[in-house]
């Protein structure tokens, strides 16, 4: 087969001096901010991080006590130092890595500042972040799969909403969460099929097609919810997937409670991460799928069926969104409420862009966005006076900054969004 010889040319990224300097300045500014935090913490104040999530005894670790003032000072110096090196010497291809390190330092400094004189259950917060991240990450995988094949999917939100409702309904009727999950996934894939037919077969603008699905699924779920689910409570009471500890791994401190002693959806997410990453970038199947997204005409010439590949990618995208949607009702809340996905599908889209259209990147971005969400909920408890809404906004702002190319432009598939016309 000649297909394996397709080489997808990528532009070699050249880091402009301006961008180096801007990045350096950003890092220095973050350092200065950390320093300002330290001014608010009195010497001798300690931040107490609890390292065992509540209600769990496996994977326990001793509490972590941090002297606030000293830690903040050290972090500030580190950040400013890295920033200065960035401005004057540059880290070359490590630039983005260094930037993320500085951002991580900043986040930690922020938490230390917020917790100074109090205590915070860090592992509890991280495990909340993972759970909040599940629908975002699965949504982002959904986006990666379809956009890598050249089909823009802004209907992730609608697919998730539909899956959430169908999962709750079928799960309640059959009193079986597995059948509920299956039905949820099928409903989402059905919507994906419609998206495929509209955008691949009828070649209508993919964003309009996505909007059709979003409006339709908002309408349908709200309609059925108002007509049946709210009136007959027995239709909206599905069983929830229980916590499944994995032997041995669940006992690892910190990591154990986060990833190996939780619910099925986290495991599905981790498996999907590995499978999609490997399949997309190390198999012939993935190469073909990406070829269709980058240069459909070339792929067609070499004998790849562009339409079939795109349909398959969109259906798989629906599969991922369906699992992500089912998480809302079968994995976390246990009932369906109108509009309960609350924009998670769109954050998933943002995570996909932030993660540069790769599963691994999307996973990282999704965790980060989940983390932002969980900080937002903790902020009110810690009483920092920062409105939670600003925390909740940050994923969107960060995505816009990434998209604008301030911290390195993502490389979207070249044929993303263009219908393919066979000639």
């Amino acid at each position, binding site marked *: 087969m000649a297909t394996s010889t397709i080489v997808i040319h990528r532009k070699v990224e050249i880091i402009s001096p301006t961008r180096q300097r801007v990045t350096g300045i950003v890092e220095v500014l973050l350092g200065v901010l950390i320093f300002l935090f330290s001014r608010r913490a009195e010497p001798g104040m300690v931040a107490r991080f609890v390292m065992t999530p509540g209600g769990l005894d496996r994977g326990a670790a001793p509490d972590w006590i941090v002297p606030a003032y000293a830690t903040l000072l050290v972090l500030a110096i580190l950040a400013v130092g890295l920033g200065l090196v960035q401005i004057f010497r540059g880290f070359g291809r490590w630039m983005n890595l260094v930037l993320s390190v500085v951002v991580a330092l900043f986040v930690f400094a922020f938490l230390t500042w917020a917790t100074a004189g109090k205590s915070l259950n860090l592992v509890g917060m991280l495990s909340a972040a993972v759970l909040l991240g599940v629908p975002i990450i699965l949504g982002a995988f959904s986006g990666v799969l379809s*956009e890598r094949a050249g089909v*823009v999917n*802004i209907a992730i939100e609608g697919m998730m909403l539909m899956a959430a409702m169908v999962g709750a309904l079928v799960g309640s009727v059959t009193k079986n969460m597995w059948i509920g999950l299956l039905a949820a996934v099928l409903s989402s894939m059905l919507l994906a099929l419609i998206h495929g037919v*509209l955008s691949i*077969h*009828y*070649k*209508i*603008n993919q*964003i*309009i*097609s996505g*909007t*059709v*699905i*979003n*409006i*339709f699924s*908002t*309408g*349908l779920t*709200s*309609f*059925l919810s*108002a*007509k*049946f689910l709210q009136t007959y409570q027995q239709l909206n009471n599905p069983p929830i997937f229980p916590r499944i500890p994995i032997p041995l791994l669940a006992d690892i401190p910190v990591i154990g409670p986060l990833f190996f002693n939780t619910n099925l959806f986290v495991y599905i997410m981790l498996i999907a991460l590995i499978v999609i990453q490997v399949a997309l970038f190390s198999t012939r199947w993935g190469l073909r799928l990406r070829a269709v997204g980058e240069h459909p005409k070339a792929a067609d010439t070499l004998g790849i069926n562009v339409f079939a590949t795109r349909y398959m990618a969109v259906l798989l995208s629906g599969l991922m969104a369906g699992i992500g949607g089912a998480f809302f009702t079968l994995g976390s809340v246990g009932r369906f409420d109108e509009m309960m996905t609350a*924009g998670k599908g*769109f*954050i998933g*889209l*943002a995570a996909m*862009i932030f993660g540069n259209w790769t599963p691994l990147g999307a996973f990282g971005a999704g965790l980060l966005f989940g983390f932002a969400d969980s900080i937002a909920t903790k902020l009110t408890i810690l009483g920092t006076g920062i*409105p939670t*809404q*600003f925390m*909740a*906004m940050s994923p*969107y*702002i960060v*995505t*816009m900054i990434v*998209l*604008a*190319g301030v911290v390195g*432009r993502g490389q*979207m598939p*070249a*044929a*993303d*969004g*263009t219908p393919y*016309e*066979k*000639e």
Partner: protein
Amino acid sequence: MSENKPKQDAGKVFLEEVTGQSEEAQRLKGWRKTGRTLVVPLLAIFTGLVFGAIFIVVTSEDVYAAFRVSFGTGMAAVWKTIIQSYQALFTGALGDPARIVAAFQSGNPLEIRRAVNPILESLVNATPYIFAGLAVALGFRSGLFNIGVEGQLFMGAAAATAVGIFVKGLPQIIHAPLAFLAGALGGALWGFIPGWLKAKTGAHEVINTIMMNWIAFRLTEWLLSGPLTRPGSGGLPISPIIEKSAEIPQFFPPPIRFHLGFFIALAFAYAVHWLLFKTTWGFDLRTVGANPNAAKYAGMNITKNIVLAMTLSGALAGMAGANQILAVNRSMALGLSPGYGFDSIALALLGNSTPMGVVLASLLFGALRNGATRMELLYIPNDIISIIQALILAFVAAPAIIRTIYRIRVPKEAEEAVFTGSWGGGSK
């Protein structure tokens, strides 16, 4: 499958735009042309309603109960459900004809007003649709996909509310327009940012406007529970009631809500028509939208036009929000919009991105939304309208479906509206 959508010859389009030939030709063809452009939208609406009816029947418990008795009773129940639902939709949207006639015969002004109120209420419902639909249509014409109407609408509403609350002691003739203008500016800012980012960095406006939507939601949530909160609301995100002087006047005493905003919307529809089709600016915008490369060769400033179009589009969306605050709700809450932002995409497509078409489509959607409130009395949730709207949008966007269902021949020339190319089309 390529015969579904004839490819538009970009060069030809540009030539026609320059010489004005195509519009001349359109005018000459007259009624036949109008008929042909109306066939698909009308059939799309009809098909949407048919699917809606099927949906209502399938989810009706009465129908299932009747089928359990016998097939005949079942069919009768199906028929009865459809008639009842759409009768409710019709009278809810346009009023009860018998009652209107009786009211006019009695000559009692109060009774007349009450009888025609459903129509007036439909117009009230149509007003934000007109503004929002114009916003999307203006974007489409300029080759931009403004999917951020919802966020721009929220920012417009917030700005108008702020001016309506905090500015005091002005006469209504100044205060109301000022608040409305603030709303337009709020929306314009929210449109300007993605427009500017697209022009300067090539970041696609679709992603950025989606992101801006969510930033706007969170921001208004904060505003309404912080700086703009109503004292004593107990933490509910709702603003105080705006000053009397900031109100856009309603024509009749409550509960009739028909207001001046409707005519302002019509005036803006005309203004957008004039801007797009009668000015050089509009010509530039349309050319950039139809064919950016040709526009570049003709020496048009693409950057300026993108920013301008997004800003104006945002301003129109902001007006939709300002209108809802100043003329209808008189205070701001988070449930401000039942999805005007996404519905407006359907409006612009249904109206083929012409201001006149948008107004007609808005009247239809306003009537549907209003009529749905009457359907709720029959235990049909008004979300049925969203389902019908989504179907209409799908059928209008993919005329091939309608042509297949009704076996209509494919017209010789392309009739689809011009859109932006690909996701990454802007990053060159």
